[in-house]
């Protein structure tokens, strides 16, 4: 184990960082898990329109306790709401939006990402459980920008950003940006480019947790989200 002189981002802080890149007017699909949290961290006053694969365009925040509507759920089957300007479509139209490149951004979770942007996020091939793919393959193919939020390493400390994915692919060469708990990394034709690292992190230390070769952007910045408590309150 490498001794840590840094504090990895929390799930909320990773979601916060991803949310900062969502632009006014973007149509965005948030995957199940950490990506879902990003909806809470869009900077105030910035209108971003969230898409849910089950036929919601203009998904709002979680309902207040007691105001849950049994007919309003998100892709993770959690209760949700509709914002003014939102509307409902059926499944074929919801996936037409995804597959047809109408979404600006798809924020996904991942098990593994390769240096060429291959994504593995649908099955670990655990023989005890049936596989499930849901909308993962559709989302990995359709949006104009596919971005991933993931822990930089596995629970055992092994890299999850790899030369080649070990799990079955969701889609090849689709990921353009990775938000990890240690850094923000762009997948470029020239390889992986670190554009932000958390305070105290060095390229050498980050490389030690990453299989393929990393390059540091000349204008890289410190990845400095609000304190976890502030981020949560935003």
């Amino acid at each position, binding site marked *: 184990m490498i001794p840590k002189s840094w504090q990895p981002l929390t799930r909320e802080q990773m979601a916060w960082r991803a949310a900062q890149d969502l632009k006014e007017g973007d149509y965005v699909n948030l995957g199940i898990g950490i990506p879902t949290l990003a909806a809470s961290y869009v900077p105030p006053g910035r209108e971003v329109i969230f898409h849910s694969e089950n036929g919601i365009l203009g998904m709002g925040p979680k309902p207040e306790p007691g105001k849950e509507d049994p007919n*309003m*759920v998100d892709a993770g089957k959690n209760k949700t709401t509709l914002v003014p300007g939102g509307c409902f479509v*059926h499944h074929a139209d919801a996936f037409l939006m995804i597959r047809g490149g109408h979404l600006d951004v798809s924020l996904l979770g991942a098990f593994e990402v390769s240096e060429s942007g291959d994504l593995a996020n649908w099955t670990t091939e655990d023989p005890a459980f049936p596989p499930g*793919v849901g909308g993962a393959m559709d989302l990995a*193919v359709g949006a104009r920008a596919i971005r991933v939020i993931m822990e930089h390493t596995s629970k055992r400390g092994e890299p999850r950003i790899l030369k080649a994915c070990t799990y079955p692919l969701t889609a090849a060469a689709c990921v353009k940006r990775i938000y990890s708990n240690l850094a923000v990394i762009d997948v470029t034709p020239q390889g992986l480019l670190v554009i932000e690292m958390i305070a105290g992190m060095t390229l050498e230390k980050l490389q030690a947790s990453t299989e393929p070769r990393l390059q540091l952007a000349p204008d890289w910045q410190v990845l400095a989200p609000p304190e976890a408590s502030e981020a949560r309150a935003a």
Partner: protein
Amino acid sequence: MIDKRVNTTAEAVAGVRDGSTVLVAGFGAVGVADHLLDALHEQGARELTIVANNSGNGDYGLARLINAGRVRKVICSYPRSGDYSAFLNAYRAKSLELELVPQGTISERMRCHAAGLGGFFSPVSAGTKLAEGKETREIDGRLHVFEKPLKGDVALIKANKADRWGNLTYIKSARNFNPVMAMAADLTVVEVDAMVELGELDPEAVVTPSIFVDRVVVVGADA
């Protein structure tokens, strides 16, 4: 006078044959025709192929059909949702077969059948394990997979309102797979919360036009 309304869920699912492909709309527990699924359980058809997004919950609806050994195959995108123990037990016992299909591909394959087309090329799943054995083609520099139309013998639909012709509206995200599945089966059976007079539904806001609907039954408080 055209009147597609039937009085009971038993009449609604009458005639479903062993070996049928049944389209079961819904996403998780939302927009699922649970009353019709229960009626299908009573009706007795066996060796069913179920097309659905998920694989049932608890021991009601689809899960109950699975527990009763009536399902031969499930075509779905995400069986692991909620309490899917009925499916999991049958899957582990190898008493049913699973065909895993990406969610957008399931819905598009059903629309493809509904639209009278012979199949389509999709970039989704190209180069992955789920495309193994499928025809592929490079179109505009991108690998595509050939997908075939998917047809139901019966569709079990949950809507909000219907009129006697069978025009339907839905509520919020309970719309999901319902309008697509309603178009894609030989026999489309609908449970609704309420019937309204012909002409009462806004002609600009009908989601499923009557042409796709065969039988309607009112369930719940208004039954």
